[in-house]
């Protein structure tokens, strides 16, 4: 296990170093120390972009992992509980009513609605009959569908469907200093889940087991869902919906290393971060000097990796 940790840290460090030096404006390693311009550029654009990719990837992977544990269903993504749709609603509202607000302020407001939408989902989940934990993802889908329908209704009238879909399409090309800092909050949320990792793992075994071990089932589920909502709403609004990370990374890690969350969460985080950062670097290079959104790169790369794993490796026993 320790070996894997080191491998992860090393890979991330390498990728981050690479990410600092890849971009439209030329930066050379040699001139770096004599050139205040270059350091400024790193501060304004390259470092924020790198750190945003790392945080977004890591937190989404963790959120996906926890979500799959809580609802005991391998096919759910953290975005399926109305969060993405709530973010879209917020973006619509600020676009129509506060067009002159700064981008960062728009992000804060939209994160607010995304969070409210997620909390609304929690309210509904709390009232569900406790005998059917499997209803949670189904209710999440329907709930998200209702909010999504509201978003389409408004966007369709105002000719904003493409606007919304592009804003929510995961990419880091718009990340600059002062436009991504909300992600640090998401990072804090993800860190919290690590301390509750054991509880989530127990909840993943089902209600009966949880109660017999003296845990408050409902409370643990709620804590987990709040963390997931926080992470997904902040990432969606700041960098858009990044597909695959929340779904694929937990599945891969679980197939390779099993489900001991306290052990595997750091791996999940590092793999999510590495995958996202590598995809973003690739997205900057594929059609240089133009961008390919990270969501697209991840879609292709993630699919290839996942399908290979699916058709090669035996199940973790």
């Amino acid at each position, binding site marked *: 296990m320790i070996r894997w940790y080191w491998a992860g840290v090393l890979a991330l460090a390498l990728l981050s170093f690479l990410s600092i030096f890849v*971009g*439209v*404006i030329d930066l050379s390693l040699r001139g770096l120390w004599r050139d205040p311009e270059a350091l400024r*550029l790193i501060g*304004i*654009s390259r470092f924020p972009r790198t750190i945003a990719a790392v945080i977004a990837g890591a937190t989404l992977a963790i959120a996906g992992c926890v979500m799959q544990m809580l609802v005991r269903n391998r096919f759910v993504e953290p975005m399926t509980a109305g969060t993405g749709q709530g973010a879209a609603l917020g*973006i619509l509202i600020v*676009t*129509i009513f506060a*067009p*002159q*607000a*700064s*981008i960062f302020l*728009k*992000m804060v407001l939209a994160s607010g609605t995304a969070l409210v939408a997620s909390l609304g989902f929690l309210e509904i989940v709390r009232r569900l009959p406790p005998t059917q934990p499997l209803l949670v993802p189904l209710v999440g889908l329907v709930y998200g569908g209702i909010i999504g329908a509201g978003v389409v209704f408004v966007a369709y*009238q*105002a*000719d*904003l469907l*493409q*606007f919304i879909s*592009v*804003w929510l399409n995961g*990419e880091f*090309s*718009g990340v*600059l*200093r*002062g*436009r991504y800092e909300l992600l640090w909050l998401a990072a804090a949320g993800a860190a919290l889940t690590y301390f509750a990792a054991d509880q989530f793992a127990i909840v993943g075994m089902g209600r009966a087991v949880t109660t017999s071990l003296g845990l408050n089932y409902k409370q643990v589920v709620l804590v987990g869902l709040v963390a997931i909502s926080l992470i997904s709403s902040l990432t969606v609004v700041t960098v858009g919906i990044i597909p695959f990370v929340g779904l694929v990374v937990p599945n891969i890690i679980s197939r390779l290393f099993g489900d001991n969350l306290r052990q595997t969460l750091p791996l999940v985080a590092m793999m999510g971060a590495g995958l996202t950062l590598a995809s973003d670097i690739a997205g*900057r290079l594929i*059609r240089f*000097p*133009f*961008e*390919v*959104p990270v969501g697209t790169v991840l879609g292709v790369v993630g699919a290839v990796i996942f399908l290979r794993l699916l058709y090669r490796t035996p199940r973790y026993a």
Partner: protein
Amino acid sequence: MFRAFALSLTVMTMPAFAETVEIDTYIGAAEVTVQPDRIAVFDIAALDTLDALGIEVDGVVSPLSVDYVSDTAEGADPVGTLFEPDYEAIAAGGYDLLIAGGRSSRVVPELSEVASTIDMTIWEDTVGQGLARLNAYGEIFGKQDEAAALQVTFEDALDAAKAAVADEGSALIVMTNGPTVSAYGANGRFGWLHTALEIPEAVEAVEQATHGEAISFEFIRDANPDVLIVIDRAAAIGQEGDAAAMTLDNVLVHETAAWSNDKVIYLNSANVYIANGGMQSMTQIVSQFATKFAD
């Protein structure tokens, strides 16, 4: 679906001495009866030009998305939306001519089965096709003189704009979409701004693509255009430039020549793509350039 009905309709409403005129439409030449009594319009650019010619419209789609045609559309009956014509309303309305195009181009076959329809799409060559459509409307409605006058007005405005931007250097067309930006070249949908106004491009590479390209703010700083032409994807609700200015208001864009010399021009996006090729919309856009760069 409508064939039997359409057939009976044509049999009933064939006037004995209808005078027709041949005009160019997007899908080839068409014979159109002159001076149609009741018309319905399914394209905003067409509505824009008809409005400029002072032609009465009896049926119109909603929402309009552009404000300057609202008084013309005021008394007209609703006939559905740009994407979904209300066929029952059209059938009941007894229209002599349906004018479709652009977004409603897809439903021209269905519309033709209800009433006589022309496809007046303006797509590849905005200025050329826009003027061709203007003169076609002049032929149909017997307003050739008004059409010629409008063409002269537009060409004067265009010349004034050309003269104003002649010494401004190179330009980059960007479209903002929330926190992200795309660039469009001379072959793209907004390329007529480069070709008609004769502004050179700041970045040669964009011009090969007919669609836009996703770019970063570093790209804008690196391209360093003298003029930045900004279209806001979100401004179809009539709030030009506010949101776009907020997106571009950052350290990297501040370092470009365009920003530091205040040569950033925000276009009304409804004019640029919803009413693309309409006479009023084109005239407004080139006048905007003329006033911005007049000094």
